[in-house]
């Protein structure tokens, strides 16, 4: 469904990605793992059309999307949840969701406000509050809900478990399972092996802008050296 081939990316003169290749299949949850600064966020931003200097190829449903404007990529059915959440702090929860709203698509599940409020009950209570008044966990919920308002088929989740309380992490795991049940494909980036194993089918490990491992978690367990070298365990 999503195919990344030999992707490279630069910030200024610094090359951050150096030939990243990976794929996400239909209704699959894939974890992109790696330490801080390994290039996970950069990969996601490149896919989403948020970086100007990129090379290689990104195909979505067979169509080339690398180098296209990010709104056009989103309209193909790709949702992006940034790691720093990027809530519109001066807008209410409901207005934040309104910004993400897009018309329904025939090939993807439709998420109305009611469905989302059922998934994230906190947000219903706080729907008239400003984004900046929410707690970190609530903001994380809101940013996912906001992206789901666009009725995506594939969603890029950048470090959804980072910096939130353990209870919320559990809730997050349930949400990801629900996304899979609804038929979405998910690419999440993670540093936490435990969480990644809990929610995803397969994993890639990235280090210094290159993929160092790909496979199932069993394969990873068979080679403890790999997680020791490339992950902070």
């Amino acid at each position, binding site marked *: 469904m999503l195919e990344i081939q030999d992707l490279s990316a630069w910030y*200024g003169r610094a090359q951050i990605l150096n030939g990243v290749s990976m794929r996400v299949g239909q209704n699959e949850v894939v974890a992109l793992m790696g330490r801080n600064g390994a290039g996970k966020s950069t990969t996601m931003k490149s896919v*989403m*059309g*948020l970086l*100007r200097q990129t090379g290689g190829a990104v195909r979505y449903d067979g169509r080339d999307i690398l180098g296209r*404007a*990010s*709104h*056009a990529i*989103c*309209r193909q059915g790709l949702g*992006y949840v*940034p790691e720093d959440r*990027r809530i*519109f*702090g*001066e*807008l209410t929860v409901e*207005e*934040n969701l*309104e*910004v*993400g709203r*897009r018309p329904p698509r025939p090939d993807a599940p439709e998420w109305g406000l009611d469905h989302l409020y059922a998934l994230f009950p906190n947000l219903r209570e706080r729907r008239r509050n400003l984004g900046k008044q929410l707690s970190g966990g609530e903001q994380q919920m809101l940013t996912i809900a*906001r*992206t789901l308002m*666009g009725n995506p088929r594939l969603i890029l989740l950048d470090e959804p478990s980072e910096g939130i309380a353990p209870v919320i992490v559990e809730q997050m795991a349930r949400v990801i399972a629900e996304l899979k049940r609804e038929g979405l494909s998910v690419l999440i980036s993670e540093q936490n092996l435990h969480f990644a194993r809990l929610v995803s089918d397969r994993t890639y490990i990235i280090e210094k802008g290159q993929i160092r491992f790909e496979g199932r978690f069993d394969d990873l367990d068979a080679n403890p050296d790999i997680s020791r070298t490339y992950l902070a365990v």
Partner: protein
Amino acid sequence: MGFYFAQLLTGLANASSLFLIASGLSIIFGVTRIVNFAHGSFYMLGAYLAYTLVTLWSGSVLGFWGGVVLAALVVGLIGLVVELTILRRIYHAPELFQLVATFGVVLIVQDAALAIWGAEDLLGPRAPGLDRAVRILGEPIPEYDLALIAIGPAVLAGIWLLFHKTRWGVLVRAATQDREMVGALGINQAWLFSAAFVLGSALAGLGGALQIPREAVSLQMDLSIIGEAFVVVVIGGMGSVSGAFVAAVLISVLNSFAILIFPQISIVLPFIVMAIVLIFRPYGILGKPGSEAGAPEAPEAPLTLMSPKAMMVMCAGLMALALSPLFTAEFTSVLLVDVMVATLFAVSLHFMMGIGGMVSFGHAAYFGVGAYAAALAVKFLGFGMLPAMAFGPLCAALAALFFGWFSVRLSGVYLAMLTLAAAQILWGVTFQWQDFTGGDDGILGVWPPGWASSDRVYFYIAFVLCVGGIWVMRRIAYSPFGYVLRGVRDSQTRAEAIGVDTRFHQWMGFVIAGAFAGLAGVVFAFSKGSVFPDSLGIALSIDGLIMVLLGGIHALAGPILGASAFVLIEDWVTRLDYWRFIFGTIILVVVLVAPDGIAGGIQRLWRIIKRGAA
């Protein structure tokens, strides 16, 4: 009592006018992050169009208000054309490009208005039904002022509803905070930007149109309002419409009382208020720092030293320049002095922007302080030329020390606006302080002494000072200090992490740039024999930016080429009719076609030729 109340009402009526133009500017900045100098031109066009329409449909109430509204709509349409043809191409360019491009629009609109409506000031008709005064507490208050007092809040309410009750408004508010994220959520920013630009332009047009019963419509309306409108936007918080309203009321009401005590203050008061507000609230009263994500990357200045070949070309050029008085006419020497002064000025601005990473919209301030300090020293202290030439840059450095201290506390566009405010304060003081600075009449008789009075001798004095000044700045740029400054420019956080006092370095960079701009001002003053407030004005600051941009920010020789080209083009073009139109067009062409300036253009051409030859 009644008198003070009347004064308050006048202040509020002024606030409404100011709010209309500032709200549009704030919306445009909030969404597109473009500092739109052409906003004053939209305001002026609104006034001219309303003048024509209202005169055409004279007499009836419907004719007046219909004319005002239609003028605003037409201006909105003109805004759309400007957005689609020019701005859309440069949203990702550095601020400097956008500023200069919108200034190109200012020049073009000025000459278009001159061609259509002529140079005479036009007195518009009064508003039918609102053309008298009513007595409130015994004081006569124009009815039209009362109408304006109502229109301001009404427009604010309208914008509020638009922004809170429509999807479009929610998107605009979201984009003001983080436009890149809005794009990632599937919103086509281009469309959002166009719409915001149309709304903003129409508001400026409305502001201008509503002005016709109060003041004569003239070709000076654009630049006279733009400074104040910027101030209101910055005080209120860029992108905040309610902030613009609060700031407009604050400034206008303060002003209507301050002039009772100190009549000359009105030109500088807004800028003083702005400086004070920015010190305590760097993002304005109701402003929030917008997300920098998706912002244009800062232009990089190359670190490479000149190649031996380029060095030889440079030396040959310098030799030719040095020998030029021997085989050219006197007036060529005079023109070449202008070129050298402009080059020194441009290099000092490039030092500040390219090396220091601080964009200045008010660099003329230090040029002017240098020129005035020297002229005043000659006039009041009896200084000779050479001591005065040392005194000027010293004063410019002191002024830069003072204003730089405030400016380096901010960054990006906020820093740029503060430098603009500083320049406007100095300009206002110079303009108003008749007894000391001569006001509009300037200071005359600042000539070199007998031994240096021939154009040739003065040419060599200017040559030594300007070339020497440029050389010294180059040395500083490659000194350890220069490297640290560039490090700060490239990554403030990284520089701080390794223990560099970033503010101090920027501050000193500011002072150095100011001192050399002052040196350029001094050389200029003695070459013309006089100084006028123009030498501190917005126009000269922008000229400097155009020179840097013309040359190309990336190239080492950029400011030199840019300043030379600027002076020569100006010298030629200003002899023509409608030269502003031509000049504005040249600016737009450079920005859109050769964004890397002359130096970049030559390099590209050179590569093409080489490839063709190979």
